[in-house]
């Protein structure tokens, strides 16, 4: 057997984390992307920069500040204590919050690019035909920006699966709760159990390649340049 129980638990946990995060990010990211695509407000610059920060910040910086924020005296810690949670560190939902920050640009930017490439014209025409805001969004924007949404979801999912440094710093390596695949691989490598590390690593490699392959081939077909997020 290539994977033992701990590996399967880690794989399941990783998929669960990535799914929850992707779902939440699409919900949070869409209005944000819409606003960024449409606004001429002076806040557009600062907000864009904030959204893009995880692209350039080392995970240790994000992990370190989250650890401080989660602590009972920290901003998020004080908030979570109101709900009876002493700290969000070492918990699944702590990882979810961390991943929301960490994968945000990978979801917001493709959606924003897709909305920008539609332009104002189709929406204005729809409006003159009497379509309301939500009507326009669901019948004009969503179909035309479909590729952007798919890219956003796939990248958000994949990037969360590939998350490591942040989770290592705030997770506490608890099986079934915070021990995701990347952390499990790290533990195997550090413990010199290279064979077990190989199995999980090779699966990760294959998974990531397939995901990126799908993203790039769908983009190629649509003829839209959606990922200009990277570098």
């Amino acid at each position, binding site marked *: 057997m290539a994977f033992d129980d701990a590996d399967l638990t880690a794989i399941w946990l990783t998929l669960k984390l990535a799914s929850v995060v992707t779902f939440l990010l699409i919900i949070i990211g869409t209005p944000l992307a819409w606003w960024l695509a449409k606004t001429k407000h002076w806040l557009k610059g600062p907000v864009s920069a904030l959204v893009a920060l995880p692209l350039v910040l080392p995970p240790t910086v994000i992990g370190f500040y989250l*650890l*401080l924020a*989660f*602590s*009972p*005296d920290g901003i998020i*810690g004080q908030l979570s204590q109101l709900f009876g949670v*002493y*700290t969000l*560190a*070492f918990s699944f939902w702590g990882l979810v919050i961390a991943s929301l920050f960490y994968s945000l640009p990978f979801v917001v930017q493709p959606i924003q690019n897709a909305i920008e490439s539609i332009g104002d014209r189709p929406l204005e025409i729809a409006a003159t035909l009497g379509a309301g805001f939500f009507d326009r969004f669901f019948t004009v924007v969503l179909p035309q920006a479909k590729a952007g949404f798919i890219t956003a979801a796939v990248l958000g999912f994949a990037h969360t699966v590939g998350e490591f440094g942040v989770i*290592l*710093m*705030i997770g*506490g*390596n*608890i099986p079934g709760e915070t021990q995701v695949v990347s952390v499990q691989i*790290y*533990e195997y*490598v*550090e*413990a*010199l159990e290279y064979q077990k590390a190989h199995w999980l690593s090779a699966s990760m490699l294959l998974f990531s390649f397939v995901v990126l392959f799908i993203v790039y081939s769908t983009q190629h077909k649509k003829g839209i340049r959606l990922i200009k997020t990277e570098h």
Partner: protein
Amino acid sequence: MRFKIIFTFILFLTAQASSQLCAQQLNIAVASNFINVMQELERAFILSKKLNPQSVRVSYASSGKLYAQIKQGAPFDVFLSADSDKPQRLIADNLTAGTQPYPYAVGRLVLWRSNNNRQILQTPVTQRTLLNGEYNKLAMANPKLAPYGLAALQVLEKLKLERKTKADWVMGENVSQAYQFVATGNAELGFVALSQVKASKQAEEAYWLVPASMHEQIAQHAVTLKKANNNPLAQAFMLFLSSQTSKTIIESHGYETD
């Protein structure tokens, strides 16, 4: 004219670089938990041998990473591991100059309580703190990876608390991370190194020095590597490491020496 300046500058840099190559150079790989002590040892070594400070280069990483790098041919002369296992492996791999590792320090384990824990701040930390379960999470280093983690596990087994506390464990990949978890208050209690609580000047009531008899010795071993075979500086450093000067420095940081 400008070209000449740039050319001279490049020439200068090249000369600088090659002069460093020619001079006797000592590269030491050190487990990162020893960084505070090593910085002091390095200064004392350079001073006592009247060396050019640039002739000693120290790299810090986890013992596991340094071990992997040495196996891949990293140019280190001396390796100060945080355990006794990795030097032993290197000897078995025939990558060392001698076959005798030197135990340069023995670590001590403490049970340390976070300052954030206001409710029970008054009582000093003892074995009873653990028995009473007055904490949310118990941080420790991963027993699979770190000697301090293994020692913590052995203490819990000895106290027959392994099963009872298991649900509260949070594991750092090394003892520094276990320390982070407690220092930030995310975990209220944790097994960390005496050297760490000493370095951060914690009050004595805040930690319980676990009796050394409750776990296997946390021995840190050093070896001279094959690369150092003709390097007198490497031998000089190993000798210095066993000197009284070194021992005094090492002990002042919360380690024991043989």
